[in-house]
């Protein structure tokens, strides 16, 4: 008899399953319930129909999220490679340095950018001081993307680093021995082997970027309202739970579709690989 897999041992997962059912699955059903009912509790499609008014906001959120994710990827990839090639002690220090800003409250980090980018902020004070024209940076889409890149780039660096550090260096040497140049090494060894890290990095930057509301409020002003802002104000300002629930439901479905498409592209479902390193 195999003692390890007794009924009791298997039942250990039960508390977690019950907990998740009550606090993960049921809440999503409640969101769906609110999305399809009006304030009297009657079934309606109106909340979903009203989403048409926010099509532009959805498009803008996804567009800015995509730009921020792409910039993060381009910036993080070489850095992750550089860190993974360093000596063990240096590696540890640099990874700590990448993680450290994540422990600072992200509201304050974003706020700090506000004081840097403002019309009479630090950059413009400096520019006028050296005799240049001040720039208009705050309350633009560029500032919002900057905030997203700044806040979420560690989530791109860490998973890519964690797959690169596991890469067997003899593969690179083998590629070079077989006559490959640097581009071959990148295209045939580095890139294919780092796909799982890149995929989880993209997920971890894209999801919070698309759904953010604080960054766009602080750095984008009123002209750059994202879908997160609309949802937040529906719940916290106008108390329109039904409309907010409909928007959240659509946001969730859109993100799930994006994820599914990406997992299809990468051909593997290796999310926990990168997630774990954070």
């Amino acid at each position, binding site marked *: 008899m*195999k*003692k*390890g*897999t*007794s009924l*009791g*041992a*298997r039942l*250990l*997962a*039960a*508390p*977690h*399953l019950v907990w*998740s059912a009550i*606090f*993960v699955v049921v*809440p*999503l059903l*409640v*969101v769906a*319930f609110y999305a399809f009912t009006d304030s009297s509790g009657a079934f309606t499609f109106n909340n979903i129909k009203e989403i048409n008014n926010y099509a532009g906001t959805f498009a803008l959120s996804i567009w800015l999220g995509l730009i921020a994710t792409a910039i993060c990827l381009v*910036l993080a990839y*070489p*850095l992750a490679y*550089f860190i993974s090639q360093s000596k*063990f002690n240096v590696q*540890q220090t640099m990874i*700590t*340095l990448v993680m*450290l*800003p*994540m*422990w*600072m*409250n*992200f*509201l*304050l*980090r974003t*706020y*700090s950018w506000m*004081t840097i980018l*403002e019309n009479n*902020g*630090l950059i413009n*004070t400096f520019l006028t001081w050296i005799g240049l024209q001040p720039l208009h940076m705050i309350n633009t889409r560029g500032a919002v993307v900057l905030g997203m890149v*700044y806040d979420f*780039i560690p989530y791109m660096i860490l998973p890519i680093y964690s797959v690169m550090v596991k890469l067997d260096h003899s593969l690179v040497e083998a590629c070079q021995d077989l006559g490959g140049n640097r581009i071959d090494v990148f295209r045939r060894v580095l890139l294919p082997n780092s796909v799982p890290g890149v995929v989880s990095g993209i997920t971890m930057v894209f*999801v*919070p970027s*698309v*759904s953010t*509301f*604080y960054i766009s409020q602080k750095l984008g002003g009123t002209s750059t309202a994202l879908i997160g802002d609309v949802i937040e104000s529906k*719940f916290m300002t106008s108390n329109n739970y039904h409309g907010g629930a409909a928007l*959240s439901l659509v946001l969730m479905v859109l*993100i799930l579709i994006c994820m599914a498409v990406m997992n299809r592209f990468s051909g593997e479902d290796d999310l*926990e690989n990168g997630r*774990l390193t954070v």
Partner: protein
Amino acid sequence: MKQKRSVLLKIYAALIFIFLYAPILVLVVFSFNSSNSTAQMSGLSLKWYSELAHDSATLQAFKNTMILAVLSAVISGVLGTVSAVGIDNMKHKWLKNATRGITNIPMMNPDIVTGISMMLLFVFAGRMLGKTGVLGFSTMLIAHITFCLPYVILSVLPKLRQIDPNLSEAAQDLGCTPLQSFFKVVLPAILPGVITGIMMAFTLSLDDFVISYFVSGPAAQTLPIRIFSMTKKRVTPDMYALSTIMFFAILVLMLLINYAQVRGEKKTAAKKA
């Protein structure tokens, strides 16, 4: 050629780190500003630090945050470890996959959706029970445990897979009860994973703003929520002072952990030699 390339990479890495730390440097510098501007330095002073020490609302929020983080880390740590053992013992593949799917939901969903879904659940349940004002510290605790659990489970599971299943059987053959064999054989082997999970839960809870914001209600404030309500207006540098203190506390903690790791690494290397 190679030399030149690595110099370029070094400069590149330095630029990224400057980008990462510039806003933090701004925070730290302006926390010592003698006026209440967060853009113009007018002189050095510790005024904002003493102001902070007398701000009872902020201190209360800080206390709430710490209690919440410790409680949710410990509870999700225990619950997550136990469930990981259960998941590891599951025989049916579909059950395993279904559990994994459910575990992944809070990690895949955007925070704002998790936050409002739980808020709606609590409001809905409150309405069913005929209560208003259900949102508070306990709903926040439930929410934090919920989003921490997956991270604990996913850091314990790989460690469980590495254990030789014969070990716990051997322990039981030698007269241990299943519970004893868990504490004497399994737990020591998975302890690093459990600790990683608890640490992750602690930091996630400490830093969470979006989910707490929706489920907290007016009564219970955490530090991120307090900061949010303050940044709605013009921020005074006492928030900067607070984050400077937190930054250096974390820096010291990280250095200590790093030091312990390097020492542990050296110890195992010495043992092997």
